[in-house]
C-alpha cells in the first residue's frame, strides 16, 4: 500500500487489487500495459481475466525447515507479463507453458497476486 494520499496510476492499481481486481492500462494503440504508468493515464483501464501462461519459473529450495517456494514470470492472457509465485505445484514438475489462474491474497499491509494451476 502506498498511503491514502497517493492518487496516481500505481495507487489506483493498489486500490483495485485490494478489491480483488487486477487492472491493466490501455496504451494509445489499445494494447494492455503493466505496470501502470503516468504516460498511459489517458486511455483507461481494463480488468485482467487472471488467466495466464507460465513464461519462466525458478524454485528457491531454501534451507530446512523452510519449504521450497518459487518465483515465476506469467504472461497474462491480455498480454502483459507479471512476476508472481505459482502455488500448489511440485518442485520437479515442468512448469513453463502451464496454464494458470490468478488469485489475490493478503500480503502484509497490502495484497499480492499468486497463481494456481488450471484444472
Amino acid at each position, binding site marked *: 500500500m502506498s498511503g491514502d494520499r497517493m492518487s496516481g496510476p*500505481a495507487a489506483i492499481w493498489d486500490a483495485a487489487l485490494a478489491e480483488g481486481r487486477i487492472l491493466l492500462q490501455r496504451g494509445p494503440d489499445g494494447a494492455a500495459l*503493466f*505496470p501502470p504508468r503516468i504516460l498511459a493515464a489517458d486511455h483507461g483501464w481494463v480488468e485482467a481475466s487472471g488467466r495466464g501462461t507460465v*513464461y*519462466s*519459473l*525458478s*524454485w*528457491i*529450495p531454501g534451507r530446512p525447515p523452510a519449504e521450497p*517456494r518459487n*518465483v*515465476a*514470470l506469467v504472461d497474462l492472457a491480455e498480454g502483459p*507479463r*507479471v*512476476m*508472481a*509465485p505459482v502455488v500448489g505445484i511440485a*518442485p520437479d514438475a515442468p512448469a*513453463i*507453458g502451464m496454464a494458470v489462474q490468478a488469485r489475490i491474497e493478503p*500480503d502484509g499491509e*497490502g495484497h*499480492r*497476486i499468486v497463481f494456481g494451476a488450471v484444472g
Partner: protein
Amino acid sequence: MGDRFPRGRVAVAGLATWGVGTCPGHTTLEMAAQATRLALADAGMPVAAVDGVFVCLPDDLFAGLSLAQALGLHPRFTDNNRTGGASFMSHLVTACLMLDAGYLDCAVIAYGSNQRSAGGRLATPAAPDRWDAPSRPLFPVSYYALAAARHMHQYGTTRDHLAEVAVAARRWAQTNPEADARGPLTIAECLAARMIATPLSVRDCCLVTDGAAALVLRRTGEIDGPRVPVLGAAAATWYNSVRAAADITVTAAAESGPRAMAMAGVTPGGIDVVQLYDAFTINTILFLEDLGFCAKGEGGPFVAGGAIAPGGRLAVNTNGGGLSCCHPGMYGMFAMVEAVRQIRGTAANPVPGADVALAHGNGGTLSAQATVIFGSAATV
C-alpha cells in the same frame, strides 16, 4: 545521427587494482582512493592533474563528491552514474567524449568495495521494484535464474553447459595470482552443488569478495608511456526489471555490442580476447550470443568441451571473471582492467598477439548493458 565516437583518440594511460580478494579494515572510499593513487602513479600523472572524477561506490550516493574530497581535488566534473555493474563502462563513454572535446584533460574512473570483509553478503541498497517485490525473489539471483530456466526451455541449454562456464573461469583463475578462487573445480562438482535458485547452484554464482580498481584516461596523443586506445563504447538500457523483456533470453548487449563494434570498426571475428560480466554462468552464454560470437540459442554448445577455457576456441574471462577471480559487487571495472592488461601484455594469462579486446558490463538484473572495445596502438 547518434553514436559519434572519437575512435582511438582517448586511451587508458594507467590502471591499478588494489585489495582484490580480502581487504579488511578499509572503507569503500579508502579502497577507491588507493586504487586511484596507484593508477595515477602507473600513468605517471600527479593526483593534482585529475580534473574529471568518475566513480561508483556501493554505499555512497555522493561518491563523486567523496572521492574528490578524499583525493584533495576540485575537479571540473564528477559523474556518479549508477547503472550497476556496467556503471564504469558508462563512465568511460562520458569521459572519452569529454576528453576528446577538451572539456577535461585527465579523467579517473574508480571503484572500491569491501563487500566480503563488511559481512560476506552483497552489500547493496538495490532491490526488486514495487511490482516484483511481493513475490520475494532472491535479489539478484532469481532474475538470472528465470532467464536461465527460459533459455533451457527455449534452446535446450543444459546445466552441463552452465557448469562449463564455471569450470572454464576456474581454469583461467588457477594461473592468475590475483584470482580469489583457484582450487580445482569439475563439472560434476558444479552439478552436485547446492541449489540457490533453480537452475542455478552456488557454483553458477559469482564470488563475494573485496576489491578496488581504477583507470586513468587521457587524450591518446598526449600520453608518453603505454597507452591503450578506446576504439568504441556503447551503453544500452532496455528496462529495470527483466519482467519487461520481450524475450528474456535476449539482453541489451544485442544493442550495445553491435554499436560499440561499429564505432570501433570491428566484428566479433576480429576480437582477440573477451571479458564478460559473469555474475552468473548464464550471463556468459547470453552475452556470447548477444554480442555475436555465436547465434542466439547456441551459447551452450558454443562453450561446451572447454571451448572458452585456456586453449579453447575463444579466450573469455582470462582473469577468472566474477565467478573465480573477484566479484566485489560491481564487476564491470575488472572486466575493463583485464581487457586493458591483455592489450598491454601484462595480464597473468596473456593471449599472444591480442590487438583488440572487448569488455562487457552488465547492470541491474540483465537490465543495462555496456560494451567497450580497446585496441593496441596498431589499431589506431
